[in-house]
């Protein structure tokens, strides 16, 4: 626990981070930027897991462990995403969303 800081403030912070991520996800046109936004969203939720674990159930460790898993999955996901982006770049020479339409229809 952080002295003088209630759970509300931290949740407020994560909410803001989450929606900033959402905003970024919707508005950005570049695949890497979208990936960045996704990282923001992920992190916001990771923090939530941890905070709730700490503030409400200090004796348990589930939140922490889940955070670890999420981080691991996020790392894997990022690796894959980057691989896809690079592969895509090799094929169409761009990572703009508008141009990656070959999979549509």
């Amino acid at each position, binding site marked *: 626990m952080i002295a003088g800081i209630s759970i509300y403030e931290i949740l407020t912070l994560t909410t803001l981070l989450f929606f900033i991520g*959402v905003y970024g*996800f*919707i*508005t950005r046109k570049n695949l890497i930027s*979208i990936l960045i936004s996704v990282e923001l969203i992920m992190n916001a939720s990771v923090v939530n897991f941890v905070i709730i674990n700490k503030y409400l159930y200090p004796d348990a460790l589930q939140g922490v462990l889940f955070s670890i898993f999420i981080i691991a999955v996020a790392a894997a996901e990022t690796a894959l995403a980057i691989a896809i982006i690079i592969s895509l770049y090799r094929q169409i020479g761009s990572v703009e*969303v508008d141009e990656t*339409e070959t999979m*549509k*229809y």
Partner: protein
Amino acid sequence: MDIRYIYLIPFIPLAVFLLLGLNYKRIKPSVSGYIGVFGLLVSTVLSYYTAYQYFFVHGKVNGIYKPIIDRHIWMNFTDTLSIDMGLYIDAISVMMLIVVSTISLMVHIYSRGYMKGDDGYTKFFAFLSLFTFSMFGLVLSTNLFQIYIFWELVGVSSFLLIGYYYTKPSAIAAAKKAFIVTRFADFGFLIGILIMGYYAGTFDFEMLNNPEGSAILNWASTSFMGLSVITWGLLLIFVGGAGKSAMMPFHIWLPDAMEGPTPVSALIHAATMVVAGVYLVARLFPMFYFVEEGFALSIVAYVGGISSLFAAVIAITQTDIKRVLAFSTMSQLGYMMMALGVSGYDGHEGVGYMASMFHLFTHAMFKALLFLGAGSVIHAVHSNYLKDMGGLRKYLPVTNITFLIAALAIAGIPPFAGFWSKDEILVAAFENNQLLYYIGVFVAGLTAFYMFRIYFGIFWGKEKQYDHPPHESAASMTVPLMILGALSVGVGFIPFSEFVTPDGKGFEAHLNYPLAAIAVAVGIMGIALAWVFYKKENNLANTYAKRFGVFYKWVYHKFYFDEIYLFITKKILFNGVAASVALFDKKVVDGTMNQIGNKTVFTSEKIKGIQSGKLQDYALAFVGGVVVLVMIFIYFRAE
């Protein structure tokens, strides 16, 4: 009396029809003619035998000629209502059997000569047999539905025979016209039958005609627009009869029907089928007479009288001899209707009924003769028009004599057949309705006039230039002429009133000398006038025609009835209703359906944009949707 053998009378022609119709390519023309004639000969013999049996062997029971009936259920409508098929043997049906079989036999024999060398020779005999079968079926009907069935069948055989020269457009048009106009009348007939079936509860003549039966006694139980429904039914049935018998205003098909081969005109459109309407009214005579004090019957009388006058006037102006004969037929049919209309029921009162049937009988003989004679003339000069004829008496002696006999018969000169029957009609009219009597006398004069107009025009007058000299027809054609000629003289002496009366009792008929004298005088006047006008080529006729001016023109154009009909059918029904229905269907009904389809496609084109395939748009929608859903669940929870 065992009457089952009578079934053979209609079924022999049917068998002939099937035989010739199914094998018309395989049977040689010469053979098919013999088959047709022989088949009909058997039927004729049987018909005469039936008449002999009915009148003289079976005879009167308790002083009355009772009908003999044999019927079998053909189809059930309800527990009480059904269509029966069977035989109804009474005085008028036996009489009709004789008429139909005799004329048909004559026409069959005549056609062997007349149709020689025609492509469809076998087909022609097949159709003739079909017609004869239907006509026999019609006259032997036991109930309204049976008569309707055969009514339609004679209609269709008439259609087939009028359209026999099916490559000729005018023949097609005439055939179509005949069928559709009579069909329209049959629409009324059918409604009338339905009314009878529902309100009287039966279609059967025996039950309908029983003066003590429920159908006649309860006529007043239901009424519609001031008249009993039964009267309405009778009037509608009469519409059907008027259609077949070419009464005003359904007459327009009859003159055109002359497009058919002449033997057909003689058989169908002069002697047999067209009298079906008269026969129908006669068949239902007790109903017509008793229901609502004979209101329907008086309508019959007036329609008959007016048609008769109307047709006789038109006949004077026509130049096509077959059309003159057609209008003459219409006029004589009007006579018969009128006679029925002025008839009473009991004893001597029934003289009109008797006269009508008598005239039907004699008219069949001499009118068939007239047509066959005209056919012989046409055969000789290859034209229907008076202007192409003249002075033919030298070339066609037999035709000349027989035609003269028939013309005298129709003009009502004693002792020919027409005189006797016409006299009875005038007596009946005189006793019941003076107005109709005067019409009748006037028409008698007109008849004599127009008939001798064409007689003189054909056989006398100036000789025309003929491509090749006309010659008398072969024996197969002249023999029937001679037989019919003999009949036209002889049948007038049959004591009809002994046999054919409404109540079946029979009475003694006497000549009413004053009336007979007037009628004969009028007839002779007509002939004399024709003699003056047409015996020698002169301009009198034209001068008088000019003097009548507009009236002549109206008459010549048959009072523009055809044009009115054409306007109604072509302009209003065809181009007005049918075309607008077709257009309505295409544009509005189908258009609506197509619009529904098109709008769906259009809308989907619009909505398609939402499914852009862009992940971010989906994400936006998803997040927005989640937010909205959350808001709904949180704030609008129903509790």
